[in-house]
């Protein structure tokens, strides 16, 4: 891979992040709502304030958050803060910064997403590849079908069904929460097992919801590739079926799936946020939901911006991996 390509891709990445942060900055400022005023109005309802106090407080806070300065100046300060990954303070949990809140919630979301994405990518693509391969045993091909049928079920509905049958009726796995109530987080084996048990159902809901999509696209791709001349010639060469499947068929069918993975990341994050909420996990989804309910604007923008940047970076990483998988794009 050449330097020019890397530079081009990185500058595109910067452009995406800049555009996202600009939109996040200006769109809420078009709204007539004033987060500070709403917050203090709520406080004032509980009483104990003189009529002028609220206005003074608001002026004070505006000064502190720099909201009294001209819009353009605010924008420049804001961009500078973004570069330092400083999204400001939470209104609701002041003096906690948005970065603090995100970094506390992030591990839950990150590991859930990492695990389910990798698992459904592997299972889905393998099943799809097998079901399109003419020489696979019939029973193995049949496994793919139920997963395809489940594609239409949104992960949230899937989560509710899993909660009801596996959690509530069969009582096999806990109903929700990050870990059992009463346990103090520590670095013990028991705690790790407890956390994993709590992660099982949300992970299952996400995996079941996305495997079918991979199966379908992989099967479509596989049908094309298994008829390619090089797969035929590999058989003429007298290679064993396993080697043809792995080196000639699977390697070529996987190429577009890697692109698909980059495109699917956005959807995956969204469904993870909702599913997390359903299972009461303290991840980004819950933080975002709480922030929206309490008009905690800096947190909302921080999370939206953070997710945008994360997806943009991941897509760039995938794009750098792609030439390693396909030599044909290496020289372009």
């Amino acid at each position: 891979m050449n330097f020019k390509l890397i530079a081009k891709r990185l500058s595109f990445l910067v452009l995406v992040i800049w555009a996202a942060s600009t939109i996040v900055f200006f769109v809420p400022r078009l709204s007539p709502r004033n987060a500070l005023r709403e917050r203090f109005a709520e406080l004032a309802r509980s009483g104990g304030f003189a009529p002028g106090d609220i206005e003074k407080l608001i002026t004070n806070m505006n000064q502190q958050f720099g909201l009294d300065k001209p819009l353009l100046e605010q924008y420049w300060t804001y961009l500078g803060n973004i570069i330092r990954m400083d999204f400001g303070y939470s209104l609701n949990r002041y003096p906690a910064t948005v970065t603090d809140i995100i970094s506390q919630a992030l591990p839950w979301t990150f590991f859930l997403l990492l695990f389910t994405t990798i698992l459904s990518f592997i299972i889905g693509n393998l099943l799809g590849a097998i079901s399109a391969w003419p020489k696979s045993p019939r029973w193995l091909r049949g496994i793919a079908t139920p997963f395809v049928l489940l594609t239409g079920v949104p992960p949230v509905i899937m989560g509710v069904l899993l909660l009801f049958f596996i959690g509530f009726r069969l009582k096999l796995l806990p109903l929700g929460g990050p870990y059992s109530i009463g346990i103090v987080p520590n670095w013990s084996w028991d705690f790790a097992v407890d956390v994993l048990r709590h992660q099982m159902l949300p992970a299952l809901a996400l995996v079941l919801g996305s495997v079918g999509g991979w199966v379908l696209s992989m099967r479509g791709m596989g049908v094309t590739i298994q008829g390619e001349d090089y797969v035929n010639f590999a058989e003429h060469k007298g290679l064993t079926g396993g080697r043809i499947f792995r080196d000639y068929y699977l390697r070529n069918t996987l190429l577009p799936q890697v692109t698909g993975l980059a495109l699917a990341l956005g959807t995956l994050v969204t469904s993870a946020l909702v599913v997390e909420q359903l299972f009461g996990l303290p991840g980004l989804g819950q933080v975002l939901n709480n922030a929206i309910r309490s008009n905690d604007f800096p947190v909302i923008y921080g999370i939206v911006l953070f997710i945008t940047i994360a997806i943009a970076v991941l897509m760039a990483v995938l794009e750098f991996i792609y030439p390693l998988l396909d030599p044909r794009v290496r020289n372009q």
Partner: protein
Amino acid sequence: MNLATTENASSRNAAAAGASPILRVQDLVVTYYTDLGRARALDGVSFTLEAGMKMGMVGESGSGKSTLALAMMRMIKPPGRIEGGHVWVGGTDLQSLDDEGMRKARLSKIAYIPQGAMNSLNPVTRIGEQMVDAIKSHLSGESRQAINDRCVWALKSVDLDPGVFHMYAHELSGGMKQRVCIAIGILLRPEVIIADEPTSALDVVTQRQVMETIDKVQDELNSAVILIGHDMGLMAQTMDRVAVMYAGRLVEVATVREMFTDPKHPYSQALISSLPTLDNRGQFKGIPGLAPSLLRLPSGCAFHPRCPLASDRSRSEKPKVNVLPGGRLVACHIYDQES
């Protein structure tokens, strides 16, 4: 037509005539079971070929040339089925081997050089890997050095730089890709090489180079070569023997010289006289009518609706293969007395 090479070919033909055949195909029958009905793609094809001989296989599209090649490799895919016949390579009957035995026989006894060389190489692995995996799946005990030597030898045999070993398919030209396919085909020194239109996607200069390459490796290995194609000029220049197929049957097999100067079967006669010559410019003689559908073959001789010499017998009775003096094969009722 190049008379000099034709003569050269027939003298070689005479020299090889005494040798026992390395390839014997007997009564090969292939049927495709389609939704529209049964299509008999090969209808009892029999022929023999000696080591060091080159046989060209010509015929219209759908006459069964490629099906014959695939049937010999036992690579007919459903809905097609090999329904009978034998293919002997050396002393082995390929039809009697189990699947694993047939897998091992491919490339080591009988090699196939594919039609679409443009797409016949895996785009994501290096040429070398595709040569090495072919060797390893047949000779598991071969040392790394021996495998490497074998690849270098094969690449040099087809006039490619050994550096191609480290390249990818997209870095090669069409002619180079075709030669890589030939190099892969000869890796295990097969006794029989089938080349399915190896030159159809190439320009004439590259065609000639590829044919010379096939010629050269054949001299080195002394294998029997079957070349499938439409290009009669190419056949005349490079082959020893020509076989004409029509509607899944072999209608005539003769030496190149006999075929081009004195074709016996009415279809071969029509085919040869349809070739443009330098003398009658701009005048082309086609063969009237269309090739028959394999789903509804005419009764008797499949060629009879288009045949100027057709008799009542042609319409009712399938002609058997007559062996004429000199070993020529003709499947036509006209020659029933002569054989």
